[in-house]
């Protein structure tokens, strides 16, 4: 599946960034931007960057994922699909309350990501 989707990965752990970025790049040909915490992610939106999809971890230094999601939605970025990601299922409520579209548990699986990516592609093409 080819796409020109712009994906933002918000993740403080290098290993997780490496694996997820490779998955999105190789399987879906996404253009990847990375942020190491919620504040970096928010700053990217403040600088005028746009993304089609955001994968956001929950627990990060400086600013957590749900807090960043709340701020991103509050600045009017309502179209971007935001995926909350965590090893803890308890994080789902925090993400959804903050305005994420969906929550997926770690590790992120190809069969879980594929329909999401396809949905974003379809929406972009329509």
């Amino acid at each position: 599946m080819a796409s020109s989707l712009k994906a933002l990965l918000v993740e403080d752990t290098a290993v997780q960034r490496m694996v997820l970025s490779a998955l999105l790049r190789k399987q879906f040909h996404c253009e990847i931007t990375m942020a190491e915490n919620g504040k970096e992610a928010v700053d990217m939106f403040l600088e005028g960057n746009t993304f089609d999809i955001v994968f956001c971890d929950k627990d990060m230094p400086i600013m957590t994922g749900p807090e960043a999601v709340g701020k991103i939605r509050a600045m009017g970025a309502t179209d971007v699909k935001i995926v909350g990601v965590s090893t803890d299922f308890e994080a789902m409520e925090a993400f959804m309350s903050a305005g994420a579209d969906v929550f997926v548990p770690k590790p992120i699986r190809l069969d879980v990501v594929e329909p999401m990516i396809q949905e974003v592609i379809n929406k972009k093409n329509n």
Partner: protein
Amino acid sequence: MDYANLRRQAASLKRSLFDQGYLDEQFCQVEDLQDEASPNFAEEVVSLFFKDSARLVTNIEQAMEKYPKDFNRWDAHMQQLRGSCFSIGASKMNNECTSFRNSCREENAEGCRRSFQKVKREHAVLRQKLESYFQLLRQAGPARTTAVRSGGK
């Protein structure tokens, strides 16, 4: 050198890592991300994992020493390590990280210490086994296809 035999040894070692619960399906997903452009991707990820996890283990150790019974702090550090374990499918390590976190929730310092020793032990064992695995793969080289020539004498 018998490359086929080396490959068989690597495959057997990998199978045993799965059978003994050291690794889970996520490791296969990491290996599946290898291609011609990044033929050593799995080894690079694992190498980064051990570099990162060694640092995180040190952080936890220091936190346990410097902030006795600060279970929230201990838990936050272990959460990071657990996330890394998920990324490469380090299943046994992950289980011990979970035990540690459970002990944090129960505010059981002794339980945390015991679990942490197990985390360190599993970390060391997994490191040794994966180093052996990738060494075998390196020795075996890229998979070769052998053309079988049939011909008359």
